[in-house]
């Protein structure tokens, strides 16, 4: 057992260092003379990764599928623009955005997290629509015309911020899923009844996780709000963003820390390639990739690759509880 912990610790340490190094390198891009096209791609990669990790923290670890992460990011974007326009400093504004998204997540969490996963999924699915309707009706949120950030910030600011959020979220998932609570949450995903039996307050854990996950989504949306600087409700609260938030970790490997990184790279790459090769089929192909990964790789590309290269580790492992139940 001790050895296990030791190896875990080493993994966490090296993983964290690698993430920090990557984050630093990516964040330094604006000063390294790469073209703004590459920078934009990296920015969007980080944006999707941050969203994906936010989703991963909740849905990847608990198995409760959220369709609300696009809307939560949208709430963050709106909050940051309103706060900055009210002349609040950047740090406070970002904090407000994270809190706003966290509070919104409580509505879903409290209403549906006591229930089965399907209820939660529905509750998240409708949040999108409800927030969109409300925002269009609220005068202070600009109504249907949306809102504009009065000050246009230099591009390096959202760039650095977004990469920091993406790196931080990845680090958080890496450390959390190997923590005591994290392991319990994973146990809960496989068998909630069993997890309750060993003394996990499943509902509370889920609500807290969802709140944290929403705060990260809100922060991500806020940074993107600074980047985009002009928000239309129909675009900010469109289901597309929620799809990306779940496609990125699912393709890469939901419930793992590094899977979404791979997922974000694949997603952005695929999109750019298809842009030129088969613009008409982009949506279809993303769907097909998602379907194939779910049907044939189960837990995503990263774990599948891991199994391919380290077959030894796989043997003698304790079986997944789902298998036992089957």
């Amino acid at each position, binding site marked *: 057992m001790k050895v296990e912990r030791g190896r875990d610790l080493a993994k966490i340490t090296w993983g964290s260092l690698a993430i920090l190094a990557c984050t630093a390198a990516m964040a330094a891009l604006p000063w390294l003379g790469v073209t703004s096209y590459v920078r934009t791609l990296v920015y969007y990669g980080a944006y999707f990764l941050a969203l994906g990790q936010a989703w991963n923290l909740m849905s990847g670890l608990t198995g409760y599928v959220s369709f609300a992460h696009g809307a939560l990011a949208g709430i963050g974007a709106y909050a940051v623009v309103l706060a900055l326009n009210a002349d609040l400093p950047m740090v406070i504004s970002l904090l407000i955005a994270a809190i706003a998204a966290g509070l919104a997540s409580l509505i879903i969490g409290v209403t549906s997290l006591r229930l089965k996963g399907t209820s939660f999924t529905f509750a998240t699915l409708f949040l999108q629509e409800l927030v969109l309707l409300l925002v269009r009706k609220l005068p202070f949120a600009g109504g249907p015309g949306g809102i504009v950030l009065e000050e246009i910030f230099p591009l390096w600011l959202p760039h650095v911020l977004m990469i920091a959020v993406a790196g931080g979220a990845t680090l958080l998932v890496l450390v959390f899923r190997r923590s005591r609570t994290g392991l319990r949450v994973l146990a809960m995903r496989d068998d909630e009844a069993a997890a309750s039996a060993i003394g996990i307050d499943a509902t509370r854990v889920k609500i807290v996780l969802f709140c944290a996950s929403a705060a990260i989504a809100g922060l991500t949306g806020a940074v993107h709000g600074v980047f985009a600087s002009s928000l239309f409700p129909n675009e900010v609260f469109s289901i597309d963003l929620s799809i990306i938030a779940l496609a990125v970790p699912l393709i890469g490997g939901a419930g793992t820390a590094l899977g979404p990184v791979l997922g974000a790279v694949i997603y952005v790459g695929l999109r750019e390639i298809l842009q030129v090769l088969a613009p008409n089929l982009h949506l279809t192909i993303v769907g097909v990739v998602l379907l194939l990964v779910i049907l044939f790789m189960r837990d995503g590309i990263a774990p599948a690759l891991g199994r391919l290269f380290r077959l030894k580790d796989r043997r*003698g*492992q*304790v*079986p*997944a509880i789902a298998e*036992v139940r089957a």
Partner: protein
Amino acid sequence: MSGILTVVDAHKRFGGIHAVRGVSLALNSGELLGLFGPNGAGKTTLFNMIAGLYPPTSGRIELASRDVTREPAFRRARAGIGRTFQVCRPFRGLTVAENVLAAIPPGSGVGDDRARAREILDAVGLLPKAEDAAGSLTLGMLKRLEVARALALEPKLLLLDEPLAGLTASETSDLLGFIQGLKARASIILVDHNVRQSLGVCDRAIVMDAGAVIASGSPDTIRRDPGVRRAYLGESAA
């Protein structure tokens, strides 16, 4: 010897857990076989393999000389394996009569099937409750309902998974009497974790522990078996 069920060297692994380790058994027609063992002995796993909930990792299962090892549960049910569940799983939203009707092979006509369902309900003493929702029955009645459902299949083999669990003393003796009466209709395997309770009604018995058979034979042989005594002493000490 007319064998109803033959299990040959059945194993079941769930990943690293070896739940059933090479169990073989044979059941003759009209026989009531007791299957005993402490919790976690592998009884239910063996049961589920026979019923077809999942296939064995290795080994063979034959029903009346027909290899059913790889057949899904519903096909085995049609071939004549009726079962009850340890934790009752009635169709709660359906009426008692509909519960039984669901298991009657679609036959001559809906009217005939309904009459047949009532006949079976009468046999288990649930006819007065026929139009009630199954969810409203007491535990003892639910157990009978599950038996009725299994009987509707006109089974060659009845698998009763801990039918006595949770019942009061009088319900227990009622049900045991009822089960004995069923021998005329089908061969039976009766699972119980408590040897003493139902050994008396069995023609033959098998005792399992940790996935393997530790004793088998007539009720008397089982009673005298030192291994069985040890297993049960161990259980009660724990």
